[in-house]
């Protein structure tokens, strides 16, 4: 069988830096091919080359055995190669249906709104996605946006479908739907290329696996030739001893106590306590109100209720108040709320703590020193210091954001989705950072939709459902089933305690 | 002094409305003609869209063009007084045109129209040709001192005649604006016996609005400044535009020529030359008709 899409000896450089070093790659109809690798390994770059969005610096792309040179993604799409991009590729002001049909609208001289709305609805139904075709993208949460992206790609009748981390922001349920669709497409003979940092997904889905490290292929394998550990080892290039750090044992006094806390309209009657040196995991479905709770706690949203720091009631009306009381928050939306993508590392690192870098004039040397420190503390890998942060890989962006959050030296840090879209090696690094912080006497709240992360990291787990605390699990009570029960509301402990 | 060359700077507002357009045209024509006639004369022409820019122009003439004389039509009197005085103090000849400086005795030569007479002559015509109780509307120019002078003189001239000014708005010496304002006046007022449009550009806009409303027979219009189309109509005995009041843009030519004379002959040319505003009627209109001027 001839591969329907292949690369031979493809190299790609951005300016003087070569990212891909001579890649050979084949994709066959009717297979799910997984491409895995660390952040910055070059997966997205390779996919963009396949999809016609980037041109290789040298080497060639073949479609059905014949060399092609696509001038644009649109050209490739016309030949049946469709890409679901890692970054959102939706126009925020347009509606869901508008976006799904963008560039290939139905209708003659006039748009056939009805047909497009119905078509969009059908695609969304296929994905079990409850979003209305008339909703504006800017009003949708990230997971829904990702489903719309998938619907958009499905609507393009692909013979090659390239998916760059489609599951990173999806819920468990949505991932199941996605897998069902992928299975269906595979049986229909579509060639599928898939990336994810969730290795269990890869071992579940993939027929073949290609591992990329530092822009070169280091391993090709069939599905059953490679265990998840094997994948991780191949990606990182060394054995990953323990993904999760060992658990902590001695905790200090309660440093943060929240009583009857509400962040209208969703979050109601939340009470929690956090001890010194502890990691508190908060689990729940998307939309359970975890982010709202966190943003309320740090003064980003109007709230009411009591917040006590070390026993004393405090008012947190703004982020500056939170900072003054030693509370920091790391947002889940790294690209829209966390980092200025077109600014350099330095400017991003110091933005929220500029006050510390000079009374009247900012001290560049001090800022540079802080950056040097952050780069070494958090192992940030950037090709150049003055590179725009948007060009960093996701993992390095996340480490930078972590460094930025830790710069004010908070005593309590709330980390919302610490590892979304981050490779296994970096994930482990981040877990160890969090552990180190806790051992240094900080208190950490980790909000996560990643079950192993919650289980592996937390000393206690608080589960939220529909804006309320569904229950708190401690020590040996923490187990996947217990957490899932609380999430789903099927446990005896599910009665919301007020 | 035939072998010596002289540079004369001419600074005027730019051609942003009909009258200034005419003035610009006359200035350029005169300069061309004089440069051809007198090889020893050199002219520098600068136009400005606002007073600040005109001050810049004067500074540039002094600093880089080594002018021997300046002919200036000040955009506004107050702000230009100082800068023109600076030119005078640098030992240059100064001719001021049309708008006097706010301080007497700076200029060597003053050539001007008479804004007060411009308003008064029009006002007198209204007084003589309208009965007491007649209703008129007035379109004013761009808010400026000279517009104030004209309107004040007009009002003074009709004062006590029983003629009522029922409405007054700024048409900004602009045809389109005058058209719009007049349209609204016509909607607003059932009785209008005459219109003082104060400027021929505005008069043309006013006429169109009246024609559209079909009220040509109800009122006549007096414009001003002697635009050729209007003069032609007066010559032809148009009832709608019985007369006009001159305010000749050609005064700039007089000023430039007289300044040039100072350098090419021994004629003494000091003094003040006020070009009065006369009433143009069908009888004398031919004398004011310049078909080649753009104005």
């Amino acid at each position, binding site marked *: 069988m001839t591969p329907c899409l292949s690369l031979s000896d493809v190299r790609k450089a951005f300016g003087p830096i070569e990212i891909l070093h001579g890649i050979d790659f084949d994709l066959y109809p009717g297979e799910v091919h997984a491409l895995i690798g660390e952040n910055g390994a070059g997966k997205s770059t390779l996919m963009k080359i396949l999809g016609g969005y980037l041109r290789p610096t040298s080497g060639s792309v073949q479609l059905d055995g014949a060399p092609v040179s696509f001038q644009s993604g649109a050209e490739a799409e016309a030949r049946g190669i469709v890409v679901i991009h890692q970054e959102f590729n939706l*126009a925020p002001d347009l509606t869901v249906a*508008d976006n799904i049909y963008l560039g290939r*609208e139905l209708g003659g001289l006039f748009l056939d709104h009805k047909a497009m709305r119905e078509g969009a609805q059908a695609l969304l139904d296929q994905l079990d996605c409850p979003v209305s075709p008339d909703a504006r993208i800017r009003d949708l949460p990230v997971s829904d946006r990702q489903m719309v992206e998938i619907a958009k790609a499905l609507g393009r009748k692909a013979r090659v479908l390239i998916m760059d981390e489609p599951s990173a922001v999806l819920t468990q349920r949505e991932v199941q739907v996605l897998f069902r669709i992928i299975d269906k497409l595979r049986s229909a003979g579509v060639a599928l290329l898939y990336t994810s940092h969730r290795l269990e997904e890869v071992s579940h889905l993939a027929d073949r696996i290609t591992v990329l490290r530092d822009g070169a292929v280091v391993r090709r394998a069939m599905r059953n030739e490679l265990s998840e550990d094997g994948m991780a080892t191949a990606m990182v290039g060394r054995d990953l001893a323990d993904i999760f750090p060992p658990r902590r044992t001695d905790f200090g006094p309660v440093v943060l106590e929240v009583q009857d806390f509400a962040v209208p309209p969703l979050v109601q009657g939340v009470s929690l306590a956090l001890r010194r040196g502890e990691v508190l995991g908060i689990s729940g479905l998307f939309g359970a109100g975890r982010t709202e709770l966190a943003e309320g706690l740090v003064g980003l949203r109007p709230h009411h209720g009591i917040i006590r720091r070390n026993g004393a009631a405090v008012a947190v009306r703004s982020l500056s108040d939170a900072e003054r009381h030693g509370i920091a928050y790391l947002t889940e939306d790294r690209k829209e709320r966390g980092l200025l993508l077109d600014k350099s590392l330095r400017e991003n690192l110091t933005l929220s703590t500029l006050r510390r870098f000079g009374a009247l004039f900012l001290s560049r040397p001090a800022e540079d020193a802080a950056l040097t420190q952050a780069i070494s503390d958090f192992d940030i890998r950037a090709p150049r210091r003055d590179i725009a942060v948007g060009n960093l890989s996701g993992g390095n962006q996340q480490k930078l954001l972590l460094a930025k959050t830790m710069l004010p030296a908070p005593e309590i840090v709330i980390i919302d989705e610490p590892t979304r879209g981050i490779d296994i090696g970096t994930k482990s690094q981040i877990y160890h950072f969090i552990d180190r912080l806790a051992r240094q006497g900080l208190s950490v709240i980790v909000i996560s939709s990643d079950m192993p992360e919650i289980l592996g990291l937390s000393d206690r787990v608080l589960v939220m459902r529909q804006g309320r605390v569904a229950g708190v699990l401690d020590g040996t009570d923490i187990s996947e089933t217990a957490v899932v029960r609380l999430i789903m509301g099927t446990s005896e402990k599910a009665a919301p305690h007020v | 002094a035939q072998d010596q060359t002289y540079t004369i700077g001419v600074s005027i507002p730019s051609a942003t409305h009909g009258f200034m*357009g005419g003035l610009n045209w006359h200035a*350029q024509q005169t300069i061309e003609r004089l440069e051809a006639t007198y090889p020893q004369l050199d002219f520098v022409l600068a136009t400005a869209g606002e007073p600040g820019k005109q001050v810049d122009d004067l500074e540039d003439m002094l600093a880089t063009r080594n002018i021997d004389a300046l002919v200036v039509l000040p955009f506004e009197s107050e702000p230009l007084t100082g800068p023109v005085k600076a030119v005078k103090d640098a030992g240059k000849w100064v001719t001021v045109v049309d708008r006097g400086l706010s301080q007497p005795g700076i200029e060597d030569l003053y050539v001007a129209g008479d804004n007060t007479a411009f308003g008064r002559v029009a006002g007198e015509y209204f007084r003589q040709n309208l009965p007491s109780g007649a209703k008129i509307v007035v379109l004013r120019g761009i*808010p400026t001192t000279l517009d104030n002078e004209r309107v004040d003189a007009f009002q003074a001239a009709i004062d006590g005649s029983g003629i009522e000014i029922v409405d007054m708005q700024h048409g900004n010496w602009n045809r389109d604006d005058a058209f719009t304002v007049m349209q*609204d006046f016509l909607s607003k007022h059932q009785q209008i016996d005459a219109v003082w449009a104060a400027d021929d550009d505005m008069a043309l806009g006013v006429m169109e609005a009246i024609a559209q409303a079909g009220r040509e027979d109800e009122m006549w219009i007096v414009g001003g400044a002697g635009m050729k189309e209007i003069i032609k109509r007066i010559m032809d005995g148009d009832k709608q535009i019985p007369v006009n009041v001159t305010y000749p843009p050609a005064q700039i030519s007089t000023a430039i020529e007289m300044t040039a004379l100072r350098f090419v002959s021994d004629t003494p040319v000091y003094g003040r030359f006020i070009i009065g505003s006369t009433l143009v009627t069908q009888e004398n209109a031919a004398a004011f008709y310049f078909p080649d001027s753009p104005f």
Partner: protein
Amino acid sequence: MSKISLSATGPLAALVLLVVLGAFLNDNFLSAGNITNVLARSAFIGMIAVGMTFVITSGGLDLSVGSMAAFIAGMMILAMNALVPTLGIGMPLVLAGMAVALVVGLLAGVGNGLLITRAGIEPFIVTLGTMGIFRSLVTWIADGGTLSLDFEARQFYRPVYYDGLFGIAWPIIVFAIIAVAGEITMRHTRFGRYCEAIGSNDKVARYSAVKVERVQLWTYIALGMLVGLATILYVPRLGSASGSTGLLWELEAIAAVIIGGTALKGGYGRVWGTVVGVLILSLIDNILNLADLVSPYLNGAIQGVIIVLAVVLQRGKSSAEGR
């Protein structure tokens, strides 16, 4: 559907308030004559503003439209005067004049559009430049004065502004057609959709096979041709063009677009809103002329206050929409 009506209520409320105010201040305000006047006057800026809506929606800007109108009017008058001996007075002459206006508008739009999309210069700078160029050229052609259409030709051409169909003036009819066509284009054609997509995120549009540069170029061309069309209706009104023709039209057109609820950064265009914006601006002038104010010197201040208030009103509504 409910979306359109909701988003339109904001500026509409301001418009209705103005109409009530006008009717209250002057009995003739609601007369057929006055309404015809206001609508016919709005037509020029209106057509231009409809074109501007597309330019702004797709993330552009055009400061040159006012001078472009003056330049087109000048070229049109020159051409018609020159053709009188050949074509005589009649339909062919008028049609030739109209063709000149549209072609010059098209070329002006192509010029702006190419400098912006091919040379990649900021729209603000390009059109600031061409704004100076067009106005200068018309002043130069007119020798600082006024270009006037041949008297006979003018008499023949005049009805294009002053007459109409079934008692409705031509400019109003044409404006209405353009407004409806604009609304349909924005909401129901690919072009409108692409304008919004580009203004919303041009990279996304490019990734979705939208020919970004081509669409943007067309917005400028369409605007140029609409300026040409506006000029076709403007010239018969007064039969002349000068350096002061179309002064500040660009500001008025842009203001109408923004008052109408189109975002200045692009991505979201409302043609109906623009039409309402244009009417609001015209009505303010009309009411100021009809009412007896303390001093006409204060007209500008009252205009300013009303413009801001109109938008406050709209914002009040649209924030309820949750934008």
